[in-house]
């Protein structure tokens, strides 16, 4: 996809996945952020900061970044990319790579723990690190937010920002629009709170959470801790075939 106004490219979910799997991250250069794609530096959220206020800010930013994708169509936060500002261009565009080592990126357990504490209802994300095809020791860290069932929306963040400041103990509903974060106005939040409760939905939600707990315990026993995202093999093969046919 090409945005003719700014002469940049945009990627969809499938294309982003393919670039990550290929390890050829140069393909992100020139790509602008959009509703599915957010480019960040390698470790953008300072979650280990000893200063409580700064740490709260980092948690708020992480939680709202993830929730706003969940409240739209899902997406990828791809870390290890620089987006230097470009004059007269309103969007962030990837200008260069700044990849990092696997051990330097976030631990999946840490991210999931923060989301569990900061976002309601329960939201599953995937945290992975993809090696570069030219240097297996460096790569891109990724947080993938799958598309969510409409019935489960909206995801509410318990730590949010107001006027550029991050506050703990406040609630907000962030939504991604194009490449920007938009907080649902209080009037709209109030309207949502007045909707007739759906008892069946609440029951389904409860059962789903219990099943999720069982599934998590089983998968922790079976799967290894280093499992990474794996797109369908036949889709990857199709891409290789297409490339070979057009060379």
């Amino acid at each position, binding site marked *: 996809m090409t945005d003719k106004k700014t002469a940049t490219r945009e990627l969809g979910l499938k294309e982003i996945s393919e670039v990550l*799997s*290929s*390890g*050829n991250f140069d393909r992100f250069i020139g790509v602008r952020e959009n509703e599915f794609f957010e480019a960040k530096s390698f470790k953008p959220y300072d979650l280990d900061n000893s200063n409580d206020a700064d740490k709260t800010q980092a948690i708020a930013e992480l939680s709202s970044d993830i929730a706003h994708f969940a409240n739209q169509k899902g997406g990828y936060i791809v870390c290890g990319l620089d987006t230097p500002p470009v004059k007269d261009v309103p969007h962030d565009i990837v200008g260069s790579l700044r990849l990092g080592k696997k051990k330097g990126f976030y631990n999946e357990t840490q991210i999931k723990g923060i989301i569990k504490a900061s976002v309601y209802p329960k939201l599953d994300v995937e945290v992975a690190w993809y090696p570069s*095809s*030219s240097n297996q020791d460096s790569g891109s860290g990724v947080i993938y937010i799958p598309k969510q069932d409409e019935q489960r929306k909206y995801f509410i963040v318990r730590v949010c920002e107001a006027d550029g400041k991050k506050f703990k103990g406040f609630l907000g509903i962030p939504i991604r629009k194009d490449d920007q974060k938009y907080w649902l106005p209080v009037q709209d939040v109030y309207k949502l709170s007045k909707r007739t409760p759906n008892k069946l939905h609440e029951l389904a939600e409860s059962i789903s959470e219990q099943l999720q707990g069982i599934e998590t315990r089983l998968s922790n026993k079976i799967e290894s801790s280093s499992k*990474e995202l*794996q797109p369908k*093999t*036949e889709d*990857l*093969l*199709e891409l*290789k*075939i297409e490339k*070979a*046919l*057009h*060379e």
Partner: protein
Amino acid sequence: MNKTNKVPLYILAVAPDQKVQFSQFLETSENSPKHLLERPPYIRYMGWNMLTLDQAKIREGIYWEVKNGERKIIQLHRDGALLAIAYADSSFLGWGQSEQDFVNNPELNSLALTEYTYEFVELYRRMLDYFNGAESVTFKIELMNTKLENDKRLLLRPTLRNNPLYLLHEGGAVNSDFSISLEVSLEKGTYKTEHVAFSIIQEVFLKFGITPDKIQFAGTDDKGVRFVDVSKFPK
């Protein structure tokens, strides 16, 4: 390879379903995957096999490639994928002394298809020894450009033209280009070249209306499972 020249193409591709460690990918010694690509195993030297007599070249740092002109291209990828694209016309997998012969009667050679598929599966079996972490693989088989410019479609009969019963063994024309996927487990002992190759051939022949029992160059083991029997290939 220029897809737009509309030559019928037979494409075989396979890759592991899990992320694998392929640490020997860039090695160039005699025991390396690169060397195996340049000197693949074969049943018959002059048969339809993976030989290209080419030296492998690394492309974009992510795959080795060997070629025999445009009619045969084989790539070995860093993620453990193997890809082979071959012309399915008179220059390789089809019958006909000339291009015009083939255009008038566009028929694939059943032995060529069977042997070539077997050799691909066997080559990949050997490649699997070079990487760790694969629990299963997925094959992708495609036949493209099956409708020629004169609107004739690719044909296939189960027997060879020098077989007296050739005309009695019905085959058929393929309806359209097709793509098949096949997953194979790598649990100990389950990846057997002769069985995997037959599974692929069976699906391809079915697209031409040929049932598995009609496939030549095949046998049945003591468990009743069909396999490609290389002892039935002409010497």
